[in-house]
């Protein structure tokens, strides 16, 4: 099969990303889940606008880059940071000055709200949260009295039904089945979203669903809109168990993105000139 074919689900990157429209509710995994960074740079080059970004449940460079490039109108997240390397500069600046709207969440709430969409139910209950200012600033989250108990308040979270899920995985086959290994939150993303887009390191010869060792860790193609091959497509983030994050590059980004001007220079050098890095 020709990987450049536009007939099947395996496409060239820009072609695969074309259906991701401005204003989409876009859900992406945390760094450990496999982040589609090459695709993210592609979306920025294309000038995608007004994304409502949902991170399952956290993010780092992907959210920071999209926010800094002006692609994001709102973000729902449990946390955006570069871990031990430091805070996320463009996220921090944009949330502080109010240019990006934030819905603060907590990790299990995002998992649960997407699981509600998987099950096509309107909401999911979750323990905890009561008495926090997270809840106080979420008018869309409700507290009810457990109908099966007595005097037992519990939080209800409305389902999150994303327009688009986007992630990077180790491999897909020609039919568009995607092998994700143990990263099972990617199943939740694909089940919950109307359309799933993925980049992969490489194509698998044969059908993943016919391979007993791999089928249980494979997202079936019927959830998948398009797949593009993007070797090292998570760079400079890690793809768990394949390659580590590029820490010198992330430090270079953090130094640059400390100012708007520095961020712009980074964008020109590594994102806007195609196939940089």
């Amino acid at each position, binding site marked *: 099969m020709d990987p450049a074919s536009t007939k099947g689900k395996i496409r060239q990157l820009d072609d695969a990303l074309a259906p991701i429209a401005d204003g989409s509710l876009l859900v992406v995994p945390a760094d450990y889940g496999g982040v589609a960074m090459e695709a993210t740079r592609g979306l920025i080059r294309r000038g995608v606008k007004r994304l409502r970004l949902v991170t399952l449940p956290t993010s780092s460079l992907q959210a920071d880059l999209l926010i800094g490039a002006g692609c994001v109108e709102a973000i729902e997240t449990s946390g955006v940071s570069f*871990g031990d390397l430091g805070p996320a500069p463009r996220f921090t600046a944009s949330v*502080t000055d109010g240019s990006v709207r934030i819905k603060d969440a907590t*990790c*299990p709430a995002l*998992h649960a709200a997407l699981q509600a969409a998987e099950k096509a139910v309107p909401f999911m209950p979750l323990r905890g949260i009561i*008495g926090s200012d997270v809840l106080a600033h979420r008018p869309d989250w409700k507290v009810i009295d457990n109908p099966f108990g007595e*005097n037992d308040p519990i939080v209800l979270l409305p389902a999150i039904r994303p327009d688009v899920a986007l992630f990077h995985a180790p491999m897909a086959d020609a039919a568009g089945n995607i092998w994700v290994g143990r990263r099972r939150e990617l199943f939740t993303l694909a089940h919950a979203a109307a359309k799933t887009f993925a980049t992969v390191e490489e194509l698998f010869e044969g059908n993943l669903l016919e391979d007993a060792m791999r089928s249980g860790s494979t997202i079936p193609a019927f959830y998948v809109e398009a797949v593009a091959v993007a070797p090292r497509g998570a760079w400079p983030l890690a793809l768990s168990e394949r390659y580590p994050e590029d*820490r010198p590059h992330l430090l270079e980004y953090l130094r640059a993105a400390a100012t708007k001007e520095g961020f712009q220079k980074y964008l020109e050098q590594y994102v806007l000139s195609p196939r940089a890095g």
Partner: protein
Amino acid sequence: MDEVLIYALARMIGDARHVGVGANSPIPAAAAFLAQELGEGKPTVSLQESPRYNVFTDGGRELFDAAGQGRIDVFFLSGAQIDGRGNINLVALGDYGQPKRRFAGSYGSSYLYFVVPRVILFRTEHSRRTLVERVDFISAPGTSPPNVYRPGGPAALVTPRCVFLFDRARARFRLESLHPQHRLEEVIENTGFEFDWSEPVQTTPSPSAEVLKILRGPIAAKMAQLYPSFAAGGFGAPRDGRGERR
């Protein structure tokens, strides 16, 4: 100093079956590994960021589901601010809508603080700006009304100066011990909330030669692999009370 801290945290883990360590928490991770060495393989240690030490295979939600079921006995949390009632703030300083400073977010704290039986708070900066009378934003409250389902909550707060234990019934911290070379007056001066104590205040035990050997051997090796920037800063290098390397 880090070694006294790690040892104090490890002793608090005690005979837990399963200890969870969140992202970017090298000292709690070292403590969990030390507890595992001292406990001859018990407890199970989960580190979110490491495939090898991540014992979950059902996606990011499994940790939270397992914690909700009571399968995680100890978890470490922190806060940009921690107040005297055990409330923690990981979100913002000042007004939430127009923050003076914005932080990363609440992560799993708004949930884990309720369901994990023993949450150990750990803060590398012990000052009046971090340990405050009242947090500006409650990511997770220290205590809850009696009708709120809450099998878990804060057990202790450990800083580079001392160990506090949390009294859930009174919603107050009690000074348990001062680390070697630290004084009660210094802790009072650098703590923004009121707390209880009785004199003489005990001294936090220092690790024995045998424990130090484990810390500087197998634990240091794991840390270098898992937290390269932390380990590169000099594992065991002294810190001042603000958490900065001296």
